[in-house]
């Protein structure tokens, strides 16, 4: 029986489909109070006074606090990734005390008997602000006469990495392409808004929170608040999407814990969507200056990357690490002689940025894949051809790139050939030529993206070298229960990825038990003692392997017990389909029977313990490197600027696949999110620092009507760095699709003199680009 590779329908679904859900906001505790936060309407101001007295008098209001009231105990929100020696990590009070630095920063809170009373009471709080100048633009933020976000200035850090002789690469290069791209800020907008519930029995605290990282959060909360770690239990119940936005230690979590401690009562906070748009960390936010030198046949000589990365007002959990996750990825799948990556982190008076699906790698991939198209256009080469001339060939793996990473495996030729065929590339090029000849007002554009990414975060040693505050291992434990059923406890923390199903498949194969006999438990630090949680396309590649290894240890324990009971040597036993068989005989026992024998413990081998369980911690030796080729055809109306995606083909190589259905779903969702960045989404701040996209009426998420059906397929080049051969899939679609779509739009309009359209490529921006091209 092989479960791995099967398109199993998910075990998770039945509950979710019938409304038997445990979203944090569904949960109640006896005597529970409700929290509402007052948020700054100003981007930058000194707080000169807060008067909460009127709010305290309102019916149902239990307590009101301003920053001053908690200043001594609230600590500072953590940044776990000091990427450089020169980094400045400013104090980040969960509730502002003397100064606010972004619109939406918490200045006071109300605790009341219901959520409506709490919200109403916010209006009775008086805050006096003395306005300070906002800092919005990244370039002017670094000029010496800019107003300052923090006293130390607006530069958070600077980093430079060089490899090869860049001067030589650019000197006398026949082709030099120089471009500036803007990665707009994005709002992750997981459909479940955040919520936090904390209760206490006077001794220990239990927090339910809509998080991707219950384990990391517990450690950090203990450090920030001084609540001893062993008296703190964190539970991620059902979590409605994350995409990196719930990979955070939030002000709201810290404050709810403090409020519960102060009041001795359970407290709950549930976010409104508008609050979330304002105060969930945002993604992207980079100004990218890219220079590429090439020979006249299109061979890349060197690449120079100069970034300004928008940190926002503070450094949160991995804020400065996000651009660094792209530092070794701008070279993409290509060979070159020299590479330079320079990045400055810049403080602005906006919501901090942090991880968002892909985190650093979509930004890098966008830049290289866009500029490869510019190189092709410059040399009048087909964009696929220019890529072929530069990519690492299949037989060259493992390959150490110019940026210093060793890509273990890949087959760019196979993925690209398959994608071209599924897409009908030649036919679409012919249609494009035809439309151009006819002067059709609706032009066809073809966009390609041949991406790779570094994921499966991550080898602990490499994280240490990158100055990250923790490791990248993952843990699993596996217990055979007396009746032969299997309980898998994982340190990963799924929020839509279907780990319960996939981990069941892995365990079922490794132990030879039915898929239905396995249950998977996760997301509760009291039950899953150890874990590094879910982000960075790591869960299967690291956590799935831990499950496999724990199962293998259980199997070996079972083998010893079987040998003892069957009176043979362990080496005389064959294991297949869940049964140990003495070679050449009919004598056998199943692993499920052995579970009962271990429980009864009547007849165990000398020194054996009465349990059939084990655990494993897996720490990978390398990152993993999924890759793929995505192709899209778009129709661009040159009169209105409207873009319609006509077809989209994705061939991904994510190595070995445990559940193809789940993999396909991840690719679909990823593509949609990347298209969102290309066409619709942007967190817009005005010159005063007000967020103009605070609701879903202003911040446009793609709907079903905006997207086509995606054609997906795979090639399978196993990862060599882990025993499952898996590479990770959570982020791939998002990384690939944004440049594919923008490349297609520019491709459609290039004959009109257009060589870039800034994202999101709204009809207005496309139209303006056309006007610019005509000028």
């Amino acid at each position, binding site marked *: 029986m092989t479960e791995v590779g099967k398109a199993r*329908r*998910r075990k*998770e*679904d*039945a509950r*979710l*489909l*019938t*409304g*038997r*859900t445990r*979203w944090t*906001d*569904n949960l109640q505790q006896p005597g529970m109070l409700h929290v509402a936060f007052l948020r700054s309407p100003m981007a930058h101001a000194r707080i000169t006074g807060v008067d909460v007295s009127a709010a305290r008098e309102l019916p149902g209001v239990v307590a009101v606090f301003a920053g001053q009231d908690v200043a001594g105990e609230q600590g500072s929100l953590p940044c776990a990734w000091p990427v450089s020696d020169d980094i400045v990590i400013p104090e980040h009070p969960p509730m502002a005390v003397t100064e606010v630095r972004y619109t939406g920063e918490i200045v006071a809170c109300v605790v009341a008997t*219901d*959520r*409506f009373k709490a919200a109403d009471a916010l209006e009775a709080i008086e805050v006096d602000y003395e306005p300070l100048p906002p800092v919005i633009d990244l370039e002017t933020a670094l000029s010496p006469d800019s107003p300052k976000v923090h006293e130390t200035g607006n530069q958070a850090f600077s980093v430079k990495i060089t490899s090869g002789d860049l001067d030589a690469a650019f000197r006398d290069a026949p082709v030099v392409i120089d471009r500036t791209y803007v990665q707009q800020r994005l709002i992750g*907008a*997981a*459909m*479940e*808004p955040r919520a936090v519930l904390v209760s206490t029995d006077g001794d220990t605290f239990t927090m339910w929170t809509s998080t991707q990282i219950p384990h990391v959060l517990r450690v950090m909360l203990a450090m920030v608040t001084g609540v001893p770690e062993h008296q703190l239990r964190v539970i991620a119940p*059902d*979590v*409605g*999407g994350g*995409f990196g936005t719930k990979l955070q230690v939030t002000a709201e979590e810290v404050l709810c814990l403090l409020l519960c401690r102060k009041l001795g009562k359970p407290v709950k906070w549930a976010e*409104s*969507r*508008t609050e979330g748009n304002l105060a969930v960390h945002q993604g992207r936010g980079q100004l990218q200056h890219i220079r590429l030198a090439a020979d006249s046949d299109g061979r890349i000589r060197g690449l120079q990357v100069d970034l300004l990365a928008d940190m926002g007002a503070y450094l949160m959990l991995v804020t400065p690490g996000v651009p660094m996750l792209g530092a070794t990825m701008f070279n993409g799948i290509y060979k070159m002689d020299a590479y330079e990556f320079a990045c400055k982190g810049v403080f602005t008076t906006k919501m901090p940025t942090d991880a968002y699906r892909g985190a650093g790698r979509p930004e890098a991939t966008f830049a290289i894949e866009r500029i490869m198209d510019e190189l092709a256009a410059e040399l009048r080469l087909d964009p696929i051809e220019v890529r072929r001339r530069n990519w690492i060939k299949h037989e060259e793996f493992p390959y150490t790139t110019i940026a210093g990473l060793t890509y273990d495996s890949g087959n760019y030729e196979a993925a690209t050939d398959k994608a071209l065929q599924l897409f009908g590339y030649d036919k679409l090029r012919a249609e494009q030529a035809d439309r151009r000849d006819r002067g059709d007002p609706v032009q066809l554009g073809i966009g390609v993206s041949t991406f790779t990414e570094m994921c499966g975060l991550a080898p602990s040693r490499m994280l240490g070298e990158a100055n990250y505050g923790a490791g990248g291992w993952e843990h699993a434990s596996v217990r055979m229960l007396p009746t032969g059923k299997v309980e898998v406890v994982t340190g990963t923390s799924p*929020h*839509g*990825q*279907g780990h319960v199903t996939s981990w069941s498949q892995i365990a079922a194969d490794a132990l030879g038990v039915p898929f239905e006999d396995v249950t998977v438990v996760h997301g509760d630090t009291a039950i899953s003692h150890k874990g590094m949680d879910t982000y960075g396309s790591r869960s299967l590649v690291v956590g799935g392997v831990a499950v496999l290894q724990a199962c293998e240890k259980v199997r070996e324990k079972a083998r010893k017990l079987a040998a003892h009971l069957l009176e043979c040597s362990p080496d005389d036993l064959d294991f297949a389909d869940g049964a140990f068989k003495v070679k050449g005989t009919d004598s056998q026992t199943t692993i499920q029977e052995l579970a009962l024998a271990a429980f009864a413990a009547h007849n165990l081998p000398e020194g054996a313990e009465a349990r059939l369980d084990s655990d494993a911690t897996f720490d990978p030796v390398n990152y993993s490197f999924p890759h793929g080729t995505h192709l899209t055809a778009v129709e661009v109306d040159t009169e209105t600027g409207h873009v319609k995606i006509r077809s989209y083909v994705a061939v991904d190589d994510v190595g070995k696949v445990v559940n193809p*259905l*789940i993999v*396909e*779903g991840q690719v*679909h*969702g*990823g*593509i*949609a*999110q990347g298209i969102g960045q290309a066409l619709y989404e942007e967190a817009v701040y005005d010159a005063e620092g007000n967020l103009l996209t605070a*609701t*879903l*009426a202003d911040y446009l*998420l793609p*709907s*079903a*009507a905006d*997207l086509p*059906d*995606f054609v997906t397929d795979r090639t399978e080049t196993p990862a060599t760095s882990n025993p499952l051969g898996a590479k990770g899939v959570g982020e791939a*679609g998002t990384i690939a699709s944004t440049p594919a779509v923008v490349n297609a739009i520019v491709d459609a309009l290039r004959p009109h003199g257009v060589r870039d359209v800034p994202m999101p490529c709204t009809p207005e921006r496309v139209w303006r680009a056309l006007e610019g091209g005509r000028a």
Partner: protein
Amino acid sequence: MPRISVKVDGIAYEEDVEPRLLLVHLLRERLGKTGTPAGCDTSNCGACTVMLDGKTVKSCSVLAVQADGSDIVTIEGLAANGSLHPMQRAFHEEHALQCGFCTPGMVMAAIDLVRDTPDPSEEAIREGLEGNLCRCTGYCNIVRAVKRGAQEMGQAVKSS
């Protein structure tokens, strides 16, 4: 405070409600029907969609008092005698949910769509679900599920 009576998933309730109370809050906060989630505050996401007298509404855009006298079906009341509605089954078969937060609203909207258009084209499904946002699936499998659910709903009608 006005008193209203509503039937929700077959159970009759009488409640005194503040005039400003939204139906979604009546369901979630007062009646414990937490199967219906709320994902926004501007009636954009559709997560809160329920059937009110046989037609879908976004329960965040209806006041509880407006629902007085109505018969409401939520995702919790859809499966009859322990067996899933064909549309729920189709969502499961086609892997049309990941985190599942949009799912209650999406399933309700899909059933309404199929009742109006028994054999919907892909385009009709996409247009018809425009008011329901999903951040996880990219909608491909939702579209496939609605097609499959429509077929099975059609068969269920024929065989009954």
